[in-house]
């Protein structure tokens, strides 16, 4: 005799509280991007010709269901993501993610993919190109699409990069084909503010989210009393150090710090409750990187 249905469900265990399946629509799309829209480095008094700072490139953009229209969610705009650095994909430990990716690269007409750090997936959703092994998800040709199936597992809480890992990986990452996953732990509160800082070189500039120099890089905003989270990642070939003026946070071991280093494809998130009103600098503390644009403003209102 077959066991009753409730008994089978009991054997499978209860579903995780609040666990969800999240569908995200993303495309690799061409854009013309100016790394220095105010045409100046205000700290050094240098001026730039827009022709020397503007280039066509391919980036990840969020879309509505079925890739009907580009979409930038409000929290992505506040975080400084979703225009150059790809969509800030949010999930919670226990969630399943279906990332519906379409290659709309009409600029270079190259194959692209999405490869995710920090989450669980089968090799078919690894998004890599490997002769004899990889499937369609490792080389999504122009006009084609692929759905990556991911699980935010127990060790997935945190901030993680995703990026192109196809045959065009090197040029595509240099062009800006990357973004971040922000995964909250079970029972963990989201902070009032969440910011994305992506350190990467782009056409000779050292950029944060594709922009160089104060006023062009994201101007992050918060208020005293709010909880804030900085999501930081690095792409490319260089090491960077993330530093925020006037603030400290604690390592997992409880040690206060105000600067943390990271190498290519490394990432972390830091949190604090805001108590320091004013306009502050955040930057990569590799001085040559700072000189070449890797610096921005953080505005804390009373």
């Amino acid at each position: 005799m077959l066991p009753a249905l409730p008994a089978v469900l009991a054997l499978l265990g209860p579903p995780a509280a609040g666990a969800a399946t999240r569908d995200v629509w993303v495309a690799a799309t061409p854009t013309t991007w100016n790394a220095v829209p105010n045409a100046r480095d205000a700290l050094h008094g240098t001026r730039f010709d827009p022709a020397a700072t503007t280039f066509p490139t391919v980036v990840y953009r969020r879309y509505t269901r079925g890739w009907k229209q580009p979409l930038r969610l409000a929290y992505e705009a506040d975080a400084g993501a979703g225009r150059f650095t790809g969509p800030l994909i949010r999930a919670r430990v226990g969630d399943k993610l279906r990332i519906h990716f379409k290659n709309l690269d009409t600029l270079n007409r190259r194959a692209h993919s999405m490869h995710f750090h920090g989450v669980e997936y089968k090799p078919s959703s690894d998004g890599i190109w490997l002769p004899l092994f990889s499937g369609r998800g490792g080389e999504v040709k122009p006009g084609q699409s692929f759905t990556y199936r991911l699980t935010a597992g127990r060790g997935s809480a945190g901030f993680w990069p995703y990026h192109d890992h196809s045959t065009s990986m090197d040029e595509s990452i240099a062009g800006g084909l990357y973004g971040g996953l922000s995964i909250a732990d079970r029972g963990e509160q989201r902070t009032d503010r969440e910011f994305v800082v992506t350190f990467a070189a782009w056409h000779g500039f050292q950029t944060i989210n594709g922009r160089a120099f104060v006023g062009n890089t994201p101007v992050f905003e918060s208020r005293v009393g709010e909880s804030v989270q900085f999501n930081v990642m690095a792409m490319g070939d260089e090491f960077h150090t993330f530093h925020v003026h006037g603030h400290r946070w604690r390592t997992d071991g409880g040690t206060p710090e105000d600067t943390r280093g990271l190498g290519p494809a490394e990432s972390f998130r830091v949190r604090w409750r805001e108590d320091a009103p004013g306009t502050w600098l955040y930057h990569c503390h590799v001085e040559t990187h700072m000189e070449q644009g890797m610096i921005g403003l953080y505005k804390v209102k009373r």
Partner: protein
Amino acid sequence: MIRRRVLLTAFALLGWVGGPASASAETSTIRMPGKFFDPPRTTVVATDLVVFRNNDLVTHDVRIGGGVFDSGPIVRFSSWSQRVDQPGGYPFVCTLHPFMTGNLDVLAATVAAEPDSVLAGEPLTLSGRAPAGTTNVGVEQSVSGEAWTMAGPGVAPAPDGSFEAIVAAVEGASYRVTTPAGASRPVAPHVQAGVDVHLVAERKRRHTSVRVRTMPAPKGITATLELYSRWHFRWRSQRRAKLDARGGAAFRLPASRRTFARVALSRGRHGPVIARSGVVSLRTGRAAVDPDTIRPPGDHHDGHDGHG
């Protein structure tokens, strides 16, 4: 045979070249619907093809004054054409009906100015046609009847000789273009004097009043209030208003806006800037240094050094 040789010599002297026209030059047709030329006066650009079409029931011919230009008989319902390379004024006549006269004006180039009324500093489009095959057209201006000077870089016309050049309008200036065949007739668009624009900011208890005054007062011009974004280190367009009949406009800002302000005048929302006011601090209401020009202390290099 002798007559033909004489004719060829005459054409060479005048610079008229027979045979088929260059494919890209324009064609002008002068008709003979009766015992008259229609139109009686025709203006063409050198290298244009001129067609004389006999629509009459009797034979005509066309001869340039002095007898050097002669089509020979043009029988009814036929035509005869010539290409003209040398600028000049050419009266012509039908020798079979001497009362049939006309005039052909051959120009080195044509030019027209658009729009015909602008403010000094606004873009003025000079368009026209040079002889087909011209590789470069010079753009010249003469202010208040003085000597002609270059008004900008030359332009390379299309294969048919048509060209377009944009210059910043100068008060009292006439414009012409020059080609290897000579200069065009001048055009004199109506250019009004440049506009002075002043900004006054006054802090009230709850708001800041920003008033714009212009001299002279060009009604209908758009005034765009620009505020400096301290966090983005750039000027940003904030509000727009049309100048009233006295050339004024007013804006009201929250008293909390304490940055820098200036105003730009343009024709329409997207037109180029005709004039800009000085910078005023909304905090003090006084004239201020343009914050976009603030440089690090002790930094004396000229700035335009491209990549940092």
